[in-house]
């Protein structure tokens, strides 16, 4: 009797738990959004323009199998959620954001401020915190339309930017979670990938730098390389330096496997002193007509050139972010906080006034490891 009662209760519990399953929507009833684009609209009443890129199965393919095609839809609205509701009205299937891999914001709207929708996007349960943040030089709708024409499965397309960061270091990982964190009491400022249409394709080089909710400026690929080195996100990259043996042809150098960069922030006479020690491994890629990198002297000469190049790049990058953009994207504030034990002590200093006047000391060390197959011709 006891056993029977238990079995009946268990079955009842399971049945009760799944009573709503009958009206759960299946994948065939949903349209998956893979990217969201946000622009400034021309309408005064509806200032936001929302574009969505939807994945749609295409069964008309010659091969007979099902391929995925994407298409974009745009609507003017007052807020993100209203826009989504309007787009839902236009679609037969319910729009779902659980596969959204990119939030594209136009540079125009980013410069005016994104406070009206970024927190709403983060608050959406369907949007994953790993979603990529992109700033588009052109209109976000144009970028998404272009993406739809060049890629069959565009969700992978947006992740490919990040994958390329491992090889080039010209971009870095900019996810929604870190963007949101940087906006709320963090030691760093927010960053997003900078994208633009070039010829018939979409390129992503450099980063969009934010100061609070507003885009403050843009970083180049080389600046991003410096950012990656300072934040220990760097994996490998190729740079060009002055070639002491053949000044007319630049020397291509492969940078890799650095040891952790060391950052020290101190306050001297009310001026911030930021000391950065960076070390990288380098290898010569160039092989011009008569080259010789086998001697100790030539190696030292090239090492000095690489150091000089990197030091100058770091100096430009750090001065641009601190003095021009006033945006601490590296998180020097965290290293500064390390010097003080309590917040009460820290309250005596105002980081926002100290940082733009900061002085940087950059020490670059590189170890020229090899010239690959040949070091002398």
């Amino acid at each position: 009797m006891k056993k029977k009662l238990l079995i009946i209760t268990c079955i009842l519990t399971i049945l009760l738990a799944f009573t709503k399953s009958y009206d759960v929507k299946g994948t065939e009833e949903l349209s998956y959004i893979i990217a969201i684009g946000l622009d400034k609209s021309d309408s005064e009443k509806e200032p936001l323009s929302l574009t969505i890129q939807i994945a749609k199965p295409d069964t008309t393919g010659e091969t007979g199998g099902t391929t995925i095609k994407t298409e974009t839809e745009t609507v003017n609205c007052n807020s993100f959620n209203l826009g989504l509701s309007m787009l839902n009205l236009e679609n037969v299937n319910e729009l779902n954001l659980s596969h959204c891999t990119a939030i594209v914001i136009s540079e125009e709207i980013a410069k005016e401020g994104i406070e009206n929708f970024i927190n709403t996007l983060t608050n959406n349960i369907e949007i994953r915190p790993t979603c990529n943040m992109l700033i588009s030089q052109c209109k976000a709708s144009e970028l998404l339309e272009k993406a739809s024409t060049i890629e069959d499965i565009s969700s992978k397309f947006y992740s490919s930017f990040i994958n390329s960061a491992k090889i080039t270091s010209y971009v870095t990982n900019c996810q929604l979670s870190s963007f949101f964190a940087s906006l709320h009491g963090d030691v760093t400022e927010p960053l997003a990938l900078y994208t633009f249409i070039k010829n018939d394709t979409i390129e992503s080089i450099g980063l969009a730098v934010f100061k609070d909710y507003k885009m403050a400026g843009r970083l180049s690929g080389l600046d991003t390389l410096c950012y990656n080195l300072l934040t220990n996100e760097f994996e490998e990259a190729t740079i060009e330096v002055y070639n002491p043996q053949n000044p007319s042809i630049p020397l291509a150098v492969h940078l890799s496997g650095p040891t952790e960069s060391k950052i020290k922030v101190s306050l001297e006479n009310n001026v911030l002193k930021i000391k950065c020690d960076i070390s990288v491994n380098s290898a010569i890629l160039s092989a011009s007509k008569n080259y010789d990198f086998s001697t100790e002297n030539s190696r030292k000469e090239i090492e000095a050139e690489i150091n000089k190049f990197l030091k100058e790049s770091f100096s430009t990058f750090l001065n641009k972010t601190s003095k021009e953009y006033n945006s601490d994207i590296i998180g020097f504030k965290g290293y500064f906080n390390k010097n003080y034990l309590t917040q009460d002590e820290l309250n005596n200093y105002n980081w926002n006034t100290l940082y733009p006047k900061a002085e940087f000391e950059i020490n670059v060390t590189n170890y020229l490891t090899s010239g690959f197959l040949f070091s002398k011709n």
Partner: protein
Amino acid sequence: MEFKIGKYQAISFILIVMINKILLNIPKEIIKQSQTGAAINVIFTCILALLLTLFICSLVKKFPDEDIIDISKFVGSKPLQVLLGIAYILFFSSIIITVIYEFTNLLQVIYFPTTSVYLLLLSFIIPMAVASKIGFKSILKTNTIITIFILLSLIVIFLGTITNLRITRIYPILGTNINNTFIKGSINIFGYGGLIYLFFLSPLLKNKKDFKKIAIISILISGLFLLFTITILLTIFPFISHSEEILSMYLLTRCIEFGEFIQRTDAIFIFLWIISGFSYLSISLNFINIIFEKLTTCNKSKNYSYSFLGIFFAIIILFKNQSLFKFLETYFYKYFILGLLFISLIILIIANKKKKGNSI
């Protein structure tokens, strides 16, 4: 108690209490109090909790077969026993109500937005009733297995989110000031909710000599997991000290990705947490039964657990106001547990003195 439990079952029993507290926003409350000094505060409160544990061990030594309810009868006869019993019933009831509320709220927001809250509540209430019918021994045995899985899941969360952490977010290391981290922060000992259950542990044990070992190991492991959770939360979510979110641990699970293949793992973690919730709820309900049996003349008090469950169901439905449950979960829990801890210790001290006096 008709049955006795071993060392591992006892450790798991204390740990499941702590794990559920870790999952249900206790780290968040500690961070709110101590800000960036929360990690140091947890180490400090862990030392305090260990000292308190040693003190409890020395006091309980003379009462190996009695729990705090029996000891209160020895100290202040039936009136004190009834008063303390009611206080403990209220405490366990508040735990059950808040845990059920938190889980149903989480499930409704994330997975079942259109499902009626009654059904979600029943999916917790019915298993608790079944567990109560099966018995405390089975619950504790099952709990041992569940605890291992939950601890492993927490380790996976730590490992899975380690790439997102930024260690400089933890500075200034002592938080707002020393007063808030150490003096006012000592109140965060409430995070070690397992201490309360130590007053009921001794009569359940097969070997009473293991009590001290079990208590210290459980508090140490709890402290370690609390420290890891707080450090991870502080170094990943800088907004955690001033935001209000559904469950901070759930936010962590959303960040976990192991390559291209293992993504969106949050559902697995929530499934495991619900099971651990069942275990914790069933244990708390059984303690209500045990206390109720001692306060009344009922022999088969577990039959009354259905009535208790009915009352809990009604309370959750009646008070839909979220702020009430937040109040129960934070302020009420925080001060009630400290009050109970204090009163129980006083009773134990008096009982020890009384026993010493009787033996002379």
